């Protein structure tokens, strides 16, 4: 992810006031201190939902199903933290924020398919895809950052994934041997959001957002070229900024032979009137997670089909 030097007057284009005003203009009165609930995802490669619930409840934890997720559970209490239990070390579940579990549910990879995870580290969604596929078929996981790939490797080992090959590379430039993928997940490097990063308002500026949007378009365009005709691409960010979300989807519609499909689920339809621009009505099929509505971090999900 590139960072850019801010021009001197850009200091006015950052900070809590600036961003919260932007969200207000998009119809959301956010406080700026919203936080998420701790969520886990059952690893169906190694355990059933009932087994994980039973074992964690026996250790004093309280678990509640997340209605819009197949394998997601909210977790509270318990004798140890969710990341330091036998069940975690045995790979029976992963710690994964609720909104971050949603893109793979939308992608819905199936056993036997060939799937690409373009910005894969630290591997939460990679292991989720392998679980949906029952370890059958292939997940090609790529990330440019070697330091983050160590976490992906640990996650693959811990969760018993056996159908993955992982590369340290720019996903847009790797040699895939001519493969066109059945499904692609582009969980694009993004500006993030304040819900999961308490210092977010102090370190992000509109310049960062624009630099990230440019990088996202480069990857987005490359992803379409790697998708088989009729294949499905899910584009997702954990950014609330329209430049990284709706405006990128609009750019894709204008420059590539693709269509959008309804994402559905929680959250709100994506914006079609944003920053003085009227976007294609199709863009409303994408989904936006506002923290005040979903109780999750900010998130955006688009489902794209190559025509």
């Amino acid at each position: 992810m590139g960072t850019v030097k801010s021009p001197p007057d850009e200091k006015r284009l950052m900070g809590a006031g600036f961003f919260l005003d932007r969200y207000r203009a998009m119809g959301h009165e956010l406080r700026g201190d919203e936080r998420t609930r701790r969520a886990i995802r059952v690893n169906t490669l190694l355990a059933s939902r009932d087994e994980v619930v039973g074992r964690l409840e026996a250790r004093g934890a309280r678990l509640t199903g997340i209605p819009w997720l197949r394998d997601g559970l909210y977790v509270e209490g318990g004798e140890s933290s969710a990341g330091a239990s036998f069940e975690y070390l045995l790979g029976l579940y992963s710690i994964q924020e609720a909104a971050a579990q949603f893109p793979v549910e939308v992608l819905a990879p199936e056993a036997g398919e060939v799937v690409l995870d373009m910005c894969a580290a630290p591997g939460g969604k990679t292991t989720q895809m392998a679980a949906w596929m029952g370890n059958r078929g292939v997940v090609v996981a790529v990330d440019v950052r070697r330091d983050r790939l160590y976490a992906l490797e640990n996650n693959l080992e811990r969760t018993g994934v056996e159908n993955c090959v992982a590369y340290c590379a720019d996903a847009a430039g790797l040699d895939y041997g001519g493969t066109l993928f059945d499904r692609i997940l582009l969980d694009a490097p993004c500006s993030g959001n304040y819900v999961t990063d308490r210092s977010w308002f102090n370190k992000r500026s509109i310049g960062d957002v624009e630099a990230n949007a440019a990088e996202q378009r480069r990857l987005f365009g490359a992803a379409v070229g790697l998708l088989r005709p009729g294949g499905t691409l899910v584009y997702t960010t954990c950014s609330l900024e329209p430049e990284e979300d709706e405006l990128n989807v609009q750019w894709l519609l204008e420059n590539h032979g693709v269509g959008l499909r309804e994402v559905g689920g929680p959250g709100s339809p994506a914006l079609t009137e944003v920053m003085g621009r009227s976007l294609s009505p199709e863009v409303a099929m994408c989904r936006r997670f506002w923290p005040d509505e979903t109780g999750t971090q900010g998130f955006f999900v688009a489902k794209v089909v190559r025509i």
Partner: protein
Amino acid sequence: MRELKDFLEAIGAVYVPVGERVNLNDRRFVVGLGVAAHIHERGRLVYAGRLLGRTRGEFIPSASLLRELGRLQGPNKVWVDDRVGWLFTCGRDVFGESILRSEGEFVKGACFLVMLGGDCLGYGRIGKWEGRMILRNIFDLGDFLRREWATRMHPISIADERP
């Protein structure tokens, strides 16, 4: 793979991994045919299929190999309770008196899987400490947490590792 054979002998297991072998530095993998067909740029490959383990002087099995061996009849095993199991995953050795039951002979140099119910937490080698029998920890699943902490506290410089 000599190191794997030595480990399996020490643990008393009969096991033949199925699939194409892939070596990446000190790590040993097996991959199915479908997965092997998607290995194109070996120089950028960091993981493939199923990790069997690492060779660091001796063979250190992966969590997935231990999981599979834990389900088999035949390998040497000791069973412990929650408290001893947790201390073991924190890197501690297991004293003989803490072992609830066992399968296999306690002979010098033999290795045993450490089991909590049906789950394998790692393995160790039989030894003595102040005249007491002890199972010296060689590998335990707490290694995942130690690796996570190590990379968080000492972020690895990526400048030289970018492709």
